Every structure is written in structure tokens, then in C-alpha cells.
């Protein structure tokens, strides 16, 4: 479990002849066993926020840290595309991101592969797996380093509805059992309502517009009325905040 601290974060991209403000003074914090969704339309900077937290991009100004006590937390990152090394097997991909290569670590990686149901495919190459399976490897990989926090960038948006549904359930169970801090980026309000206990709303131009608690009890059934009501509620908020893009 970790603490996420974002303070006045600004990120500006310098193009050839103009600038793009991806994040404009975003501040929020989260800690402990929580599932935070970062929601917003395309272009609101949610992926950029995750990239800064992951250390892939650097802030133009302000701070964004994920801490475990005093030190930087161990962070697992799941991407939209699985981002597996295509020339290495599933197991080799799992081992690529580990800190050590001991027998213990190998067994741990195997355990997480089993958790996502891919233990038998550990020697397959990514091209031999379906999109959903590849994404499951990506999730297993992130969990297998036993991080303090998990960052996920629209991990299910490229999958078909049926596969995505199953993976959401898997993800929920893994989060619930391992008690991690999860930051989950999505543009799908329904997905956010189904999974998270808190929703941070970003608008186009990179401004934080709202912070909504989702108080519904776990486990949640996406077909449940309460979930649907909450979703409608949030969407109305979007309209009020003028977030619906034109």
C-alpha cells in the first residue's frame, strides 16, 4: 500500500511551433487500500498524469510522487497495449521486469501467471496468444513484482466487451486480495463506477474538476441497478461541468 501525492502538477509539451498544456495544476492525494479511477474525455491529460507518476515523463512544474513511507514506492504499470517483448516467451517477459532472478522470484512469477490462468502458456510467444491473453500477461506482470501501487492506463479499452468484462472481475479480485493502491485511468464511466471507490475527474486542458466517492458495497455487479444509477449520476455531473466534448 502506498501514498500518492500530486501537488500542483503542470506538464507542457513543446511542439514545433506551439505548446500543448497536458496538465494544468492538478492536485490530489490518495493512500492505502483504495481503487482510484481517473476519468475524463480524450485529451484531458489522464495518460500524461500516469506517465509522470510512473517516471516516464517529467513534470514541467509541481510534484507527483508515489511513496512508500519515505522512499519511492514500487510501482507496477499496465498499459493499453500489452507491451510485451515479442521475441521473448511469456515467462521471460515476466522475469524481464523483476528486480532479482532467484528461484523464489521465478516461483512468484509462476504463481501470478496461474492467477490469471495462463500457467500453461508460460513458454508461448506473445504472437501466439490472443489480445485478451496478452493483456492478462501484462496484468500478471504488474502484480508479480508485488508493487506497493499499481498504475493502469485504460487496460481494457482495446479488448472486446466479453473479454474485458471477465478481466475486470479478475482485476477486482486481485486488488481486493492483495490490498494495493490502484490508480486506474479510463474514459468509460461505467467501468469506473464498477471498479473504483473514488473517481477523480479531469477535463480537457488538464484541469481537475471533481472528486467523487463511490460508496457502493463490494463486490459490484455491473448489471446492478445501483451501479447504473451511479453511472447516470456521474454522467449528469459531467454535463453540468461541461465536460461532454463537442
Amino acid at each position, binding site marked *: 500500500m502506498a501514498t500518492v501525492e500530486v501537488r500542483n502538477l503542470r506538464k507542457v509539451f513543446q511542439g514545433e511551433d506551439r505548446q500543448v498544456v497536458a496538465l494544468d495544476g492538478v492536485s490530489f492525494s490518495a493512500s492505502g487500500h483504495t481503487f482510484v479511477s481517473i476519468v475524463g474525455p480524450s485529451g484531458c491529460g489522464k495518460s500524461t498524469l500516469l506517465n509522470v507518476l510512473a517516471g*516516464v515523463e517529467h513534470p514541467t512544474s509541481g510534484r507527483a510522487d508515489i511513496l512508500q513511507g519515505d522512499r519511492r514506492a514500487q510501482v507496477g*504499470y499496465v*498499459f493499453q497495449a500489452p507491451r510485451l*517483448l515479442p*521475441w*521473448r516467451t511469456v515467462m521471460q517477459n515476466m522475469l524481464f*521486469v523483476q528486480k532479482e532472478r532467484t528461484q523464489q522470484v521465478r516461483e512468484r512469477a509462476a504463481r501470478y501467471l496461474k492467477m490469471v490462468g495462463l500457467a500453461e502458456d508460460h513458454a508461448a510467444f506473445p504472437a*501466439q496468444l490472443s489480445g485478451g491473453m496478452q493483456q492478462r500477461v501484462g496484468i500478471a506482470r504488474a502484480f508479480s513484482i508485488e508493487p506497493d501501487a499499481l498504475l493502469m492506463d485504460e487496460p481494457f479499452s482495446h479488448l472486446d466487451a*466479453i*473479454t474485458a468484462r471477465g478481466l475486470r472481475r479478475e482485476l477486482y479480485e486481485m486488488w481486493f486480495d492483495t490490498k494495493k493502491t490502484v490508480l486506474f485511468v479510463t474514459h468509460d464511466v461505467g467501468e469506473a463506477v464498477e471498479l473504483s471507490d473514488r473517481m477523480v475527474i479531469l477535463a480537457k486542458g488538464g484541469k481537475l474538476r471533481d472528486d467523487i466517492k463511490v460508496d457502493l458495497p463490494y463486490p459490484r455487479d455491473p448489471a446492478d441497478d445501483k451501479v447504473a444509477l451511479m453511472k447516470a449520476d456521474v454522467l449528469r455531473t459531467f454535463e453540468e461541468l461541461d465536460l461532454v466534448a463537442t
Partner: protein
Amino acid sequence: MTTVELTRPAERSRFARIGRVLLTPRAARITAPLLFLLVWQLVAPLIPSRILPMPSEVAEAMWEQLRDGTMVDAFSISILRLAAGFAIALVVGSVIGLAMGLSSRVEAFFHDFVIVGLTFPYLIWGLLVAMWFGFEGNGPLIVVVIAGLPYVILNMSEGVRDVSKDLRDMATSYEVPNGRVLQHLILPSLSPFFFASLRYGLANGWKGLVLAEVFAATSGAGYVINEMQEYGFFAGVIGFALWFALFSILVERLIFGRLSRRVFRWRSTTASAEKVRRVEPFEAMVD
């Protein structure tokens, strides 16, 4: 709804009568050289032998060249020069190519030279090294370096630029140490480009080498075939040309075919996917 027929002109040809089998592409590969031999055999008697020898004369010459070691000696020496020269081109070219891929400044510095290197005729290089190194020197080897270098540089620099940023970001986000990134991400990502360097660098190195041997050597395949032409041994010239052709075919089929298939077996083909145990569809696991 009608579909446009773009293929099948062969069915209307005269050969349709001879048999369906002859129409297959496989048969065509054999028919072509046979047809060529036939035409040659028919035309050659009509032309003085000193201009166009008969196939039988050429075959005899080829056999002689094999028997008395001329062919093997000549090609061995040439291959050695090619290997040595290309090794240099590969090392130097990889360094320059990688540097060019990583730095736009280095790219600006070398770019025009690479272009000229691609355009400059091997003939001139052959003549130049003949002047600089004489007959007994390393002229041909140097030409291999010069001819192969631009292709190695071009491919390696493109390879560096092609390394997936997504994968690099993934490695960064997991704080994977640099050594591992190099070994498991960058080098495998470069391998198709490395192969392209090999292929084009060697092919062009070979062409430059053979030509340089005419002016700057006293041995080797290029020198031998030129000698035969100067002495008017025409059957020998054509025979040796056929040895060249055989050499090309051997290298293409055996080396590049086999090697690239082995190294790239991670690429999904229907054949390799079938070898994986058939996995149940994920949907079955959800409910």
C-alpha cells in the same frame, strides 16, 4: 455481383494442351532454364564459336575449371577477401549507424557521405585502389569495406530509430536495469536490421570486390573471369559466369533462407501457432 478477373491468362495459351502439370509455377521454374538451354543450343551453331560458344563447350570448360581447381581457388580467395572486408564494414558501420540513429548531429555529419557512398560507382573505386595499392595489396578488401559500409550504416541507424518507444517506456516504468534493456529489448529489436545489413552489405560488397579484383589483384573470381575474356577464352567466360550464378543461388537459398527462419521463429505464422497447445477460449473461463 460481379468480381473482376485479373489473373489466369495462362489458360488461354498454347501450352494448355501439353498438360496441366506444365502450367504450375513449379514447372515454370524448370521450364525457364530448359527453354533457355534449348534456344542457346539452336542459335549457337549459327553464330561463330568465338562469339557464342555451344552449351557443350561451356559445360566442358566448367568441368575443367572445377577439376583443375581454378574455380575453387578463385572463389575461395574472393570469399576470404569478402569476409574480412565485410567484418570491418560491419563493425565500423554499426558504430556509425548506431551513432547516427541516436544523434541528429552525427546524422547530419555523415548523411551526405552515405548518399554518395550509395551512388558512387564501384568501377571508380576499383581503379582508385588499383592506383593506391597496386596489384598485390589490399585493394579489393578495401573496396568491400567501401561498398558495404553505406548499407550497414543505413540499416543500423534505421534499426535504432525503430526500437519501440512503448517498450522502452515500459522498461523505464519498471526500472529495468540498462544491461537487461540492452540484452532483451534493444539487441533483439535490432536483429532484423542487422540481417538487412548483412544481406545488402554482403551483396554489394561482393559486386565491388569482384570488379576491384580486375584492376587491383592477381587472383580471385573477378581477376580470373577478366583474364579469360582478355585471352579470348569465351567458353570459359560463360562457364565461369555460370559458376557465379551457382554461387549466388547457393548463398541465397542456404544461408539467408535457413538463418533468417531460425532467428525469427517468434514471429507468428499459422504454422508456428498450430504448434502451441490449443487453448480454450477465455469466455469459457468467465462463467
